[in-house]
């Protein structure tokens, strides 16, 4: 986001259109497609989507990486060298946008207010499908999630 955008946003001088632009800028930063670190891809995507590092702020990643032996109910501990390498990379690529400035409950991406808002039209029955299994499985519907692409055009909800 440019300084001009920030100033305009802060002063509340934007009309609906400009706010739309602001949101687009935020969204593009959030969905910034970075080349994922090999160790990050290998270790994290063994069990789940390799979430884009910009989806959480640095403090959330720090908490997650320091509690990998109790990682959302699973032991995901790493050797010291890999832990340092992945942690450092996450800090360097963590989100900085307003969208992630307040950590979500339990540092879960799926608990951000914006996440719930964006997915509000998804019926409970869809989340419960065996082919989806809840909101943490980005790739179940976002067919290009592994490339950091969450564009609505590439959403295919499985049966």
């Amino acid at each position: 986001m440019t300084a001009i955008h920030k100033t305009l946003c802060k002063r509340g001088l934007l009309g609906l259109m400009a706010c739309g632009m602001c949101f687009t800028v935020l969204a593009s930063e959030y969905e910034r497609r970075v080349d994922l670190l090999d160790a990050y891809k290998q270790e994290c995507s063994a069990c789940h989507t390799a979430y884009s590092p910009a989806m959480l702020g640095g403090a959330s990643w720090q908490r997650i990486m320091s509690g990998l032996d109790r990682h959302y109910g699973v032991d995901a501990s790493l050797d010291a060298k890999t832990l340092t390498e992945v942690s450092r990379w996450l800090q360097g690529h963590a989100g900085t946008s307003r969208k992630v400035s307040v950590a979500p409950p339990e540092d879960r991406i799926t608990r951000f207010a914006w996440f719930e808002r964006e997915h509000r039209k998804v019926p409970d029955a869809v989340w419960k499908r065996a082919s989806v299994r809840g909101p943490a499985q980005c790739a179940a519907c976002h067919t290009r999630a592994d490339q950091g692409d969450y564009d609505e055009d590439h959403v295919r909800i499985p049966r």
Partner: protein
Amino acid sequence: MNIKSYVLWACLASVSALTHASDPMAQLHRWEVAAGQAGVVARGELFFNSTHGGDWSCASCHGQSPVQAGKHASTGKTIEPLAPAANPKRLTDDAKVDKWFRRNCKDVLARECTAIEKADVLAYLVGVKK
């Protein structure tokens, strides 16, 4: 084979030995040596499919048939087959084998597995046919 290609082959073989270090039989042997006894296939199969007093077994994520893909019990992500007969990349790297035994045993048994438990499971996995 001339001397140059022999040297190249030897270099490649040693690099490969350094990075992969192992094959499934060597993994089994490593844990049999540590346990001081041979792994038992039937015991390994029973261990693989038991929940050991908790919620999960190995099969909860790897599936009841290790020659087929499994599904992660909490995330639903596909897990490639664990048996070398179906997935030659499996059990070829000491560090990976140690890492996953450490993590997964804690998830299933709330403790690390013993050497003989690992030898049993490896005997089962190495022996299972497609």
